[in-house]
């Protein structure tokens, strides 16, 4: 009975679903996509991918994850694992289309003026990220959104580690001035482990 099987998956933990998916159970993997699809697409959008492109890359990332599900050992969360895959696929696509070099080069010469914003204003992350150059946005999103280390990001971007660190540092400074102080809201428990 497909419906019953679906509801069983809905109450399963991510790790269990990965186990089912590893045996070729595609509906279990579909449940994982349902849970974490938005998060993966969100990271890609924050890295600078436009809507349709972000969706394409996210789809490719999930398909790759399904192919390589046996490699997922459950050391981190499933969502974090797929986000890393998605970030790398997106970078490869940028490299293939020769957009990456222009993005990173632009950041070095072009330093946009960042107005010292009102720190009390409740600006969300999306808005705050717009103040960053493309390279800063890419580096910050890769390190804080996709969970890559500075070294991993430098390797993926084919940039010196110091350059990535300075992009991240400058990006963080800009974000700090634009984001409202933490209101101490603690995230509510999310379903799954992602």
């Amino acid at each position, binding site marked *: 009975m497909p419906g019953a099987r679906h509801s069983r998956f809905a109450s399963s933990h991510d790790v269990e679903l990965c186990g089912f998916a590893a045996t070729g159970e595609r*509906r279990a*993997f579909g449940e994982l996509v349902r849970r974490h*699809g938005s998060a993966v697409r*969100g990271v890609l959008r924050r890295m600078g991918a436009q809507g349709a492109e972000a969706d394409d890359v996210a789809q490719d990332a999930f398909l790759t994850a399904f192919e390589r599900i046996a490699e997922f050992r459950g050391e981190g969360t499933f969502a974090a694992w797929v986000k890393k895959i998605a970030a790398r696929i997106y970078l490869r696509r940028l490299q293939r289309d020769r957009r990456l070099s222009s993005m990173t080069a632009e950041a070095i010469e072009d330093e946009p003026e960042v107005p010292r914003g009102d720190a009390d204003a409740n600006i969300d992350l999306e808005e705050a990220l717009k103040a960053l150059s493309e390279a800063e946005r890419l580096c910050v999103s890769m390190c804080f959104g996709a969970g890559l280390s500075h070294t991993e990001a430098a390797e993926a971007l084919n940039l010196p580690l110091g350059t990535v660190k300075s992009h991240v540092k400058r990006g963080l400074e800009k974000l700090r001035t634009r*984001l409202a102080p933490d209101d101490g809201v603690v*995230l509510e428990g999310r379903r799954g482990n992602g």
Partner: protein
Amino acid sequence: MAELEFERRLERLFAESPELADAGAFAERVERRLNAGWTARRWLIGAAGVVGGVIGASQLMMSGLFQRVETAGDSARFLSTSLNHLSTTTDWITAVSSGGAVVWVAAGLAVIMMGFVLTRVIGEI
């Protein structure tokens, strides 16, 4: 310290990705692509199995194996005749080795086996 707190906060903000309105449709698209890939793979494995079976059968035919099996059958017949002199309990050897049916049964089993093995190997790959 404040820097570290800010970095943690930023990680939290990044993790707080809102559920997109078309999350269900997106998941369905991914599932459709998964299923399409799976169907294509099944066809490919099946076709490879058939092709492998045909190639295996033709190789068996070409290699003169049947002649060798028939020779072996003759030897078995000769042996069974000889053994008949010794004991009547060897009647089954004569029954099995008589006629060319055993050759075709063996060939059929070989083809099925080759197809099965090839399918499994491709499946594993």
